[in-house]
């Protein structure tokens, strides 16, 4: 039996991959990339969860904490995700100002 949190995050990743491969609109593709990032982040946090644990901030009433490392990694990954997204979107704007379309098919047609 595979835990449902893992299945949910893998499903999110896979939806992202599907969008990136199947869609032809550049902004849609970037939405797909963001879905992938979010899925991986959820996966990492789920890996770090300990049943009955509490957030890793010192607390006199609890002795069991969840794993702090995945949280630190995800903090990094979120910021990286938003950076890539902003950069990609500014490139999309640049491309749009140059040729006036967001569709990959039309982009290819303008080339010929």
């Amino acid at each position, binding site marked *: 039996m*595979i*835990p449902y*949190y*893992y*299945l949910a995050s*893998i*499903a999110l*990743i*896979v*939806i992202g*991959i*599907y969008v990136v*491969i*199947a869609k032809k609109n550049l902004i849609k593709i970037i939405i797909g990339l963001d879905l992938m990032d979010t899925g991986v982040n959820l996966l990492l946090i*789920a*890996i*770090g*969860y*300990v*049943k009955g644990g509490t*957030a*890793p*901030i*010192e607390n006199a009433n609890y002795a069991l*904490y969840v*794993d*702090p*490392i995945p*949280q*630190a*990694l995800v*903090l*990094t990954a*979120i*910021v*990286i995700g*938003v*950076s*890539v997204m*902003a*950069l990609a*979107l*500014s*490139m999309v*704007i*640049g491309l749009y*100002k140059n040729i006036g379309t967001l569709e990959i098919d039309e982009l290819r047609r303008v080339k010929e």
Partner: protein
Amino acid sequence: MKRIVAAILAILIFIVLALAFVKIPFGNINLSDYHYYNPITDKQTSDSVPQHYLVDGKKDTGSTNIVTAVVVDYRGFDTLGEVTVLFLAATGVGSIMYIFEKEKRRKVRRANAVVETASQLLFGFIVLFGAYIFVHGHLTPGGGFPGGAVIASAFLLLYLAYPRFHAEHKTLNVAESLAGLTFVIAGLLGLLISGSFLYNFLPFGVPTYLFSAGIIPVIYVAVGVKVGSELTGIVDAMMGVRE
């Protein structure tokens, strides 16, 4: 056609990844079951890395928030890289949007008086709240990244309320440079004082007090200022309302 290929590929990846997680338990783990190996001393220990952080984190770093201890101290080098990534993104967006600066601005409608007054009132409070989040990063949840994002959202509010508003570019650049330099210099001072980069060389003080945990608050303030000014820069460039 392309959709079918994509769907088949996606289902395939789903199955492969899901099967990899059959043997990985969710929640039912005991963090002290893993015993790490130190490659320098070539010794197997009876401790695991997360368990060490949770038990000795406060003693090692002086921070009561262990996530902050990991982010800024144990794995501070990653955070330096992460700050660099955001800096790169701001630089890249600035470089790409540069040509569009000269573009003529569209005629913009003024937002109504309620929005303007409310955003003026709120601006200060939001900035204060952001500053609170990153100053207390070693005590409470939060830290430099969300704090900086909150500050950037205050500026976002101004951008929405006053379509003609734009942040002074030189100030933003100088703020982000100085904050970045603070981080690197703190690291280099650690190298000078104790021979290892990013070493926490300041006294830890009493945990749970504001002035504790050595260089962690210093670095988190620098990160907060940097993230705030960079995200503001990105928003500013994306708004494209410059002359």
